[in-house]
């Protein structure tokens, strides 16, 4: 098993967001995580990635047999965890080329490999740029600076292609994308799917799942996975809406969790 999450509880500023998540992911699988706003989808992604603003209060995450919660953000990344950000950060002054070269070589160093030379690195960039249909001038610009929403998301997929993660978590990569950009993003993901890696696709809408077909669909609601199924569950959700989930759950109105 690649990833095993058991009874995961996490909070921010003393407020509990995840209230007991259980989830297993195997190599070669695509899991879709769906659910209304503010139910903890992004928090789950952040906790797996290791963002330190969230405190894990109970439970465990085992990744490749290791206690993931003990690893620093960059160690998790070097172990093959990639997070496609919902809101990619703009970093003026750092070129994508320099950024990716540093990342690729730090990961290689961690794995005991020699750094990639300039020529080999540029060839790798060219190859991956084609894969995600990234225009070449984008690569010379500062990371995400002045990028359109679509460009930012394409850039996330490009980085994913460069780093070849074992577990890629895409946090609402589809939000704000027009249909063409969505197709490019989905094509990128599909080309990168192998038997050895896994994807967690977090999305609001069923639309993305027309392009990235999941093996499993989970519905996250108020910090718990309340329903799991196959891709048909996504269609059912699309049809019935999240109110269907809401009605099924006994909710406590005192808990109004804002979008984190």
């Amino acid at each position, binding site marked *: 098993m690649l990833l095993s999450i058991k009874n995961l509880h996490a909070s921010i500023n003393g407020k509990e967001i995840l209230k007991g998540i259980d989830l297993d992911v195997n190599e070669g699988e695509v899991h879709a995580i769906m659910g209304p706003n503010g139910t903890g989808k992004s928090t789950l992604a952040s906790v797996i990635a290791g963002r330190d603003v969230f405190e894990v209060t109970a439970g465990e995450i085992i990744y490749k047999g290791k206690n993931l919660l003990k690893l*620093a*953000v*960059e160690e998790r990344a070097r172990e093959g965890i990639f997070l496609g950000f919902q809101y990619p*950060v703009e*970093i003026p*002054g750092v070129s994508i080329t320099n950024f990716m070269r540093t*990342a690729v070589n*730090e990961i290689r160093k*961690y794995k005991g490999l020699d750094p990639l030379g300039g020529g080999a690195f540029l060839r790798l960039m060219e190859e991956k740029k084609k894969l995600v249909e990234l225009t070449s001038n984008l690569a010379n610009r500062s990371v995400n600076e002045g990028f359109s929403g679509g460009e930012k998301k394409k850039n996330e997929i490009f*980085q994913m292609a460069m780093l070849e993660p074992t577990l890629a978590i895409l946090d609402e990569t589809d939000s704000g994308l027009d249909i063409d950009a969505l197709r490019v993003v989905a094509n990128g993901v599909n080309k990168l799917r192998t038997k050895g890696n896994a994807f967690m696709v977090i999305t609001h809408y069923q639309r993305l799942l027309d392009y990235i077909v999941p093996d499993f669909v989970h519905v996250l609601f108020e910090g718990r996975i309340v329903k799991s199924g196959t891709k048909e569950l996504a269609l059912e959700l699309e049809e019935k809406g999240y109110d269907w989930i809401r009605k099924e759950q006994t909710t406590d109105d005192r808990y109004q969790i804002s979008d984190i």
Partner: protein
Amino acid sequence: MQGAVKQCITKELMLTLYGDRRAVISANDYPGLTALRDDAIRRFQELGFPTTKLEAWKHTDLKESFAKEYDVVLKADDAVDVQKVFRCNIPHLDTAIMGQLNGEYVSKDVPLMTLGNGIIMGSLAEAMKKYPALIEAHLGKYADSVTDSFTALNTAFSRDGVFIYVPDNVKSPKPVQIINVIHHDENLFLQSRNLIVLGKNSRLSLVHCDDSYNHQPSFSNVVTEIHLGEHAFMDHYKLQNLNNSSTLISSVYFQLEAAAGLESHYISLNGGLLRNNLRLRFNGPHGNANIYGIYLMDRKQHTDNQVFVDHAFPDCTSGELFKGILDEHSSAVFNGHVLVERNAVRTNAYQSNRNILLTETAKINSKPFLEIYNDDVKCSHGSTTGQLDQDAMYYLRQRGIGEESARMLLMYAYADEVIGKIAIDPLRRRVEDMVKKRLQGELQICEACVLHCNTPENPVEFTIDMTKI
């Protein structure tokens, strides 16, 4: 050195020295200059050295600098074997490197040269003898010896420095680099004076480097006057890479005539105490000046940038962007003052000072200030102080980049906004390199600076190839 007296620098000492050695100091003066010196020493007598009681010196305390004893350099010893001290490849006279050792202009044979295109460059002392009228028309005309005590003291004592004259309509084909090296076995107190005059519609790129060669304490009080004639343009770079025991008071006075343009870059990489006093006057309409600064300080280093821009005429534009990264116990001051006079309508002016404090013990005092006397202006100012962007840190680390490297990338990116403005490509690449090394804590004096010096144990070698610049 002749006249070297190693002691604490006090007002009384300066006054006594001036009284005793006036004949030596003014030996090469044209008649008007000695009178200028006498006036200046009187002003210095009234003003004294600044203390933190003065608003302009509130956050820069010279106590430690004054606690050391120094040799006061009045006149360089003629017997100094320049070749031996530099042992460097100062290229032949038609090249554009000008060397200064301990404030004095260094020449192999010719102290002052005239290039084919009419550009005159060399020793200011020599130029006073050869072109007294030209010097007299400018020297002391822009510097403030009335209210600034260090400038007054410099005017009284300084005997030499660099002189550059670019005639009307001449565009210097390559940048001129002034390399001011401080190297001596004893602590030095030095005062040098530079004068740079650009004729109408002329153009010059000037790279002005202040470097230490060893770890000996020094105290420099340098005044530079720069006059840009109508439609003249200057690309000006000030690179400061001094040892941690050095004190540098650098005052640069710019006067821009109508439609003159200036791009000035202050790059402070290292130094014990650096005080940059930059004063600029638009003396005609349609002038344009951009002043950029970056300072990277750590340990107990202190840097102080005082920038004053006087919009005395209409339709001028000025911009200031100063950025700092302060680590450990370092501190910095930014005082930006833009004065827009009553008749200076359609003025455009902005000031920005941004700082990153890497530790809780690093300190910044930032005061951008606009003083405006008419309504028809566009002015803005701002100052920010913060830490590295934590979202960006997380983003970089999520891609496998370690915390240290991520910090480095972000700090470098932050500095790059200023460094990116350097218009001379090889210089920009060199500075980028130096900044990277500086941020990694690798850059010490002499190492890897534009001088391409080696370690303090090795002789200085100037291997920078100006033909590539």
